[in-house]
Structures are given as C-alpha cells and as structure tokens.
C-alpha cells in the first residue's frame, strides 16, 4: 500500500519538476501519517489528474492496443498459412482442421526430438502466445479491486474470503449452540482422497505469482477452515482449491492376461528390480504352485528368508496353489533377487485378483518398488556415514 | 633539616577523593519479552509409594514375582500413567497452546502470551 503511494508521489514530483532533495523528508513524513490520512492524500492527487489521463495509464492503453493488433495480425497470418498448407497437401482449405495441420506438419517436418514441445508446430496464435492479465483499473487509474495495492489482489481476496467464512461459521456455530443443535455427523466433510492444489496451479488459477510463505499461509488458512465443525456448509468453496488424489492402486492398471498354447492365462512382468538384481516373472493362472527360478525350484535360494520373500505375495493372496511362477533373475545377491521376484509376482498377480485384494497388497507394501540401494562411500570417510577414528595426532 | 612535602603527604588525613563508580549497562534495563524454559523441568520422582510397597512385598516373598503380582501391577500402572500424562503435557507445552483459565503455564505458553501482548517501546 505504502509503496504505491510512494510511486504516486514520485510521479507527481517529476511532473512538477521539483528537486529530488525534497523527496526524502516528504516520504518519511508520509510514512508517519495514519492510514486514513494517507488515503485522503492519494485521493486528492487523483482528483487533480482526472482531466488528462496519467502517463502510465496511457502507456498501458498503448500496450493493450498494440497487443490486440499484433494478435490480429498473427491470426491472419495463421489463416493464410493454413490455406497454403491445405494447398500443399492437396486438400480442401475449407475442411482443413487443426488436426490435419498437425499431421501435415509432422509429415513435412519429421523431427525425432524427444521433447514434444520443441518439435515444429503450427498452432493458432491463441495457443502460442501466453495469456495476459486484463486491466485492473479504470481509465482514471482507479483500481477495480479493493486489494489492488497489496500487489496480489486475487490471492489476498482468497485469504479474505477464507477468514470471512471462518468468522461466519463461528457465528453460525454459536447460534446453533444456543439453539442446542449439534453439527450433522453424516455431512462431515471428507477430505481424504483430496489434496490442496499445489503452488503452480494456484498461481495459474489466480494469474499471480505468489511466494512459498504465501502458499503456506494459504494452506494453513484452509486447514483452519476445514477443521470447523460446520465446514461442510462451505464445501464448494473448499473443494475449489482441492484436487482429487489418484487412488494408489488405480495408479497402474493391471495388464490383461494373455493365453498360451495350453489355454492358460499368463502375465509376464519385465524389469523387476531390487538392489542390483533384475529379472522377469511369469505367472500362469490355473497352476499347482510350481515355482521355478532360473530353471530350478525354490531351493535356488539357500536362505529361508529369501524363500519366504518369494512366497510372501502368494501366501498373502492365498494363491499359493493356484498359480505357477516362472522367474529369471540375474545380478545382485540372493536377497536382492528374492526381492525382485517378490515384486514381480505381486505386480503380476494383480491381473488375477479383485480390486480389494490389490488394495490390501498395496497396504502390505508388496506393490511398492523398493528402490533403496546401498549408499555410496564418501571420500575422507571410512564408509557412507562412518568417519575415520579421530586421533589427536 | 629540610622537610619535604612528600614525606608529610602520606600522613595527611584527607580522604582520597573517590570517583563515583560509573554505571555500566551490561544488559538493557528492561525485561525481556520472553522467559527461558529452565524452570520447567519437573521432578521425575513418581510412584514412590507403590515402589516401596512392591519392594517390601518382594522382600517378604524372596523376590518371586508370582506372589506379588498385584503390587507389580499397581506399580506399573502408575508408572505408565505417569509417562502418558507427562507426554501429553509435553506435547501441549511444546506447541504453546493456551488453555483458558489455566493457572500454571509452561514457558512456551508464557511466551505465546507475552508475544500476544507486547510492550510498547
């Protein structure tokens, strides 16, 4: 708020061609004014300039006009280019859609660049040029929004709304308590499965850049609001700033099983990794519980712990005698290999199980890939963490 | 004989003019807007009664626990209860949450209060 006032004063100075020396004491004086007096001060100034538009305003209007012109020109160019392209490809320009344009460009300028955004493209200018914020003040330079001088009007508007809701709800709760009513338990807002929208999307939503601390206070304010007993009354407002979480089990779809020559369903999971072991696991569905690892039975693992790991998912899902397992693993030690197979079996078993059991498997930590690895040794140390024995001399 | 003033000087009973001790302001002359948490540590001693009862029972029964199960139970119950209350209290104090009407405030709570109503300079 202060800053803008300061700016206004500054412009005034320049206009009146006063010396810069007087700026210092003047501003300090302004700082000591109370809020109301400051507002009066600035208002007076705007009244004075009402007749001719301020220079900033003029510049803004010029820019806006220029932008419109530019966009218009681009649009015309695009339309012309589209007709040309249709002509090149030997098709009718009237029925030539954006999809055709994309296909034609891909055909004419084949690019193997990995980043799709960096490939050649021909898009309507609305998609190419980023959007701009519209004017937030009228022609006299008077802002539309009462929080304009905070610099982040829409962000503070959101916070303001939140607090307003909190106040309202508290009042409402008091009223209800006086009436002897209790909040409805069934309507209680269920926030599991949702997350606060992240900082980037909040910025995009508000068309403003906000800092990390701002985002933190945003989250805090909303959590405060959610914790109120009657928060369900403002559910729509809350839900505007929450995004649904993907259910963990639904994040990866189980592949449809294929059928081999005996008519048995099978699913192969490739790239089963754990530590430095890697392997692939095939599960065949009507089976008798045969397990073969690199062509041997489960005694491929000498350690009982490794064997237990291999049958863990089968035991967990009660599929131990219902499927056959074939696994190939290489690299790493026995525990790593067993871990890789365990993950492969669990991952492949999803194709033969219902959603409920898959969710259970996920909770049991079978579907998470264990990507923990050995921590490297550091120079100047004995190991990853251990330091050399300290010696005085 | 010549008298030197210097010899007489020491016998003069005139008090040596003492300079007033200058005041040094080592710390600012005002109270801090916060308290340290030193005084918060409470005594760990708990369940002394139960313990002595249990030990007496032990002594009576040649330290076999089966015969003193009642005493042991009461002792352990007391101790676990003590730990639980301590934990709750600690959590609360760590956060500095103010409970209205509370008489004994922890340092954190006092600090939050002081912060809420600061001194004017």
């Amino acid at each position: 708020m202060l800053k803008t006032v300061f700016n206004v004063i500054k412009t005034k100075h320049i206009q009146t061609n006063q010396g810069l020396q007087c700026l210092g004491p003047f501003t300090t004086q302004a700082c000591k004014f109370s809020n109301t007096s400051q507002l009066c001060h600035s208002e007076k100034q705007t009244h004075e300039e009402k007749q001719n538009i301020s220079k900033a305003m003029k510049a803004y209007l010029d820019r806006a006009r220029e932008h419109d012109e530019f966009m218009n020109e681009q649009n015309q160019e695009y339309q012309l280019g589209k007709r040309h392209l249709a002509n090149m490809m030997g098709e009718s320009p009237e029925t030539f859609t954006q999809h055709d344009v994309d296909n034609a460009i891909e055909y004419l300028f084949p690019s193997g660049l990995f980043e799709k955004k960096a490939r050649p493209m021909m898009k309507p200018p609305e998609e190419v040029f980023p959007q701009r914020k519209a004017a937030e003040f009228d022609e006299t330079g008077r802002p539309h929004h009462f929080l304009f001088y905070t610099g982040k009007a829409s962000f503070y508007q959101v916070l303001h709304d939140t607090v307003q809701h909190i106040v309202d709800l508290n009042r409402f709760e008091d009223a209800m308590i006086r009436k002897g009513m209790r909040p409805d338990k069934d309507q209680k807002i269920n926030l599991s499965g949702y997350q606060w929208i992240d900082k980037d999307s909040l910025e995009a939503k508000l068309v403003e850049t906000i800092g990390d601390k701002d985002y933190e206070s945003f989250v805090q304010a909303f959590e405060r609001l959610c914790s109120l007993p009657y928060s369900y009354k403002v559910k729509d407002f809350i839900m505007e700033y929450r995004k649904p979480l993907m259910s963990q089990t639904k994040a990866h779809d189980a592949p449809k099983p294929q059928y081999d020559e005996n008519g048995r369903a099978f699913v192969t999971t490739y790239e089963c990794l754990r530590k430095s072991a890697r392997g692939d696991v095939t599960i065949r569905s009507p089976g008798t519980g045969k397990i073969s690892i690199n062509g041997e039975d489960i005694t491929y693992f000498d350690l009982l712990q490794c064997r237990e790991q291999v049958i863990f998912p089968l035991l967990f899902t009660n599929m131990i005698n219902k499927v056959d397992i074939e696994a190939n693993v290489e690299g790493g030690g026995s525990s790593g290999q067993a871990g890789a197979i365990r993950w492969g079996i669990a991952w492949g078993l999803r194709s033969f199980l219902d959603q409920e059991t898959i969710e259970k498997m996920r909770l049991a930590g079978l579907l998470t890939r264990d990507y923990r690895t050995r921590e490297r040794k550091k120079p100047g140390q004995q190991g990853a963490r251990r330091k050399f024995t300290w010696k005085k001399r | 004989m010549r008298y030197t003033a210097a010899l007489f000087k020491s016998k003069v009973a005139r008090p040596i003019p003492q300079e007033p001790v200058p005041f040094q302001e080592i710390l600012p002359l005002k109270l801090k807007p916060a308290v340290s948490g030193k005084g918060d540590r409470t005594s760990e001693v708990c369940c002394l009664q139960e313990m002595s009862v249990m030990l007496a029972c032990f002594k009576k029964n040649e330290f076999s626990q089966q015969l003193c199960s009642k005493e042991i139970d009461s002792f352990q119950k007391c101790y676990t209860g003590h730990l639980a209350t301590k934990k709750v209290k600690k959590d609360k104090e760590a956060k500095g949450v103010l409970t209205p009407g509370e008489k004994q405030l922890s340092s954190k709570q006092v600090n939050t209060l002081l912060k809420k109503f600061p001194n004017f300079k």
Partner: protein
Amino acid sequence: MILRNLDKKCLLKTLERQFANNYATVTEAAKESREEFKALNLKHVKGQVVQKRAPRKLDVLPPRSKQMATDQDWGNVWPGPRTFHPSTVPLPIRQGYVEKGAPPDKYANAELMKIPNFLHLTPPIIKRQCEALKQFCTPWPKNLNTQEKLIENFPIEVTTSNYCLSSPSIRNPLARIVTLTIKVSSLSLKGAMDKFLRLVGERYNEKTDILTIVADRCPLRKQNYEYAMYLLTAVYHESLKVEPWENLKSEADMEYYNWEKNASKKSIEQIFGKPVEEIPNSKMYAEAVSNLMNEGESDYTIAKYGEAVRTLLNLPKTA
C-alpha cells in the same frame, strides 16, 4: 484471372500500407528532431554528446511468401530437396522451446534448417511423379505371384536400412549394415550340413532353419554387401571339403556317440552271451543309450534308458 487480379490488389494494398507506415515513421522522426534543440558543441565538452547519425537501414523486400497465391502449384515453388528457407515457405511454423513465451518463429531459426523436410514430397507431387514414372516400368513377372515361389527362386534376402533423422549429417553410420538371410535347406548341403553349422555357429537359427549374416565391418554398404556374399560362398565351399585326416579320428574325437563302436554293446553281448542281433529288444536299448549320450542327460532321456534296460533285462515296469 480474377483471382490473380484480386491478388494483385491485395499486393498493392499491402504495399500501400507499408508506404504509409514508412511515411508515418519518417514524419514522426522529423517531428522529434525538430522539437529537440541541438546545442553547438565546438570544444567537445564531455557532458554534451554529439549525436551520431543513425546508420541507414537497407530496404529489405518483404518475404516472397507474402505474394504467393493460396492455390499455387507448390511443386514449382519447391521442386527438389532443399534446406528449409523461411521466406519461401508460406507457413507460420515455429520450432523450439522457451520456458515463458512463444516458441521462436521460422525466421533465422536454425533448428528448422537442421531437421530434414519433405516439402518436395507432398502427397500431390508424389502422385504426379509416380504417374510420370509409370511409363518406364516393366511388368512384374507373372509366375512370381506367391511368396513361396519368390523364396524358391530367390532364396537370398538382403536387408538394409536408410535413416532419416535430425542431425547435422544426413548420413547415418547404421545405414551401411547389410543383413543377409537365407534358408539353409535351399543350399542343398547333404553330408556337409554338420560342418556348415559348426562353421556358422550362432548365426543359424534351428527353429526357422534360417542363416543370418550381418556384415558391418566395412565403411560402405556396397563393401558390406560384397563381404556378406563372399562369406556365404566361402562357408559353403569350406563345408563341402573333406580333409584326409578325418578318417583317422579315434573314439574320443568323435562328434557323436556311436553305439556300435562302444563298450555298451560289448557289455550286453557279454551278459547275454550272444551277438547283438540275436538279443531281443537290443535295438531299442541301443537307441536309448545313444540318445542319452548325444542329447545329454535329462529326466526324459534317462527315463527312456531305464525303460529300455527293463525290457532288455525282463524286469517289471514302474508303476
């Protein structure tokens, strides 16, 4: 005709606009210069800066693409393969990635020049060129109408790849690799098959009976092709050779287990006390033993062997 006229009109209009624009800028500049007072600075005092004359800008003609008609014959504009040229291509294409803002446009865009383009091979042009080429083609031989016949008459199949990619060079080193495949049965090797397979090693696929030779050691495709053909010829003739020392092999040198020459035969002759031909079931036994030896031990061959022994020695079979 009318269209062209229209085009001309458009052109004129654009020219007009440009002139008008130019004029406007000139007058504005003049105004500005008129307004500002130029002080005389004879002694070259530091604070006063002598205004330098702005370098005159060369008049650049507007890009050619601005004058193109939308129904032109593109084949005439872009007749052959050529690097991308922004003023010739009437498309507002863009390439590149900027974190905030629009991607760079086609002017002075090196990326667009780097990648290959098919502007000379648009579908209508391909069609036209094919039509033109048709008169020089000979008809497909009538008898070569099925895949089997093709393979029978031309058993050798040579595969090469051409690459098209965005890199500074249009030559891909992988393009030189020549892969030659042939069905071994079409070579008519009879006794020499074993030797041939030993020479060829892993290049032979037992399931499909196909030999694959990959030649990639020479820098040029032609050389690689010749080398692959040479290899095939050499291997073929080498396998047909019979060396004089081959008749002097002892039992340990044999590639295969031959039951007739081995101790197994003697031992059953000793058991039964008569020559092999008179022993019942000896043939089955001989087969089982040689299978066991040649194919290696497995549960199956051992079981077969056990069965043969049981029938030979008249023992009850397993339940």
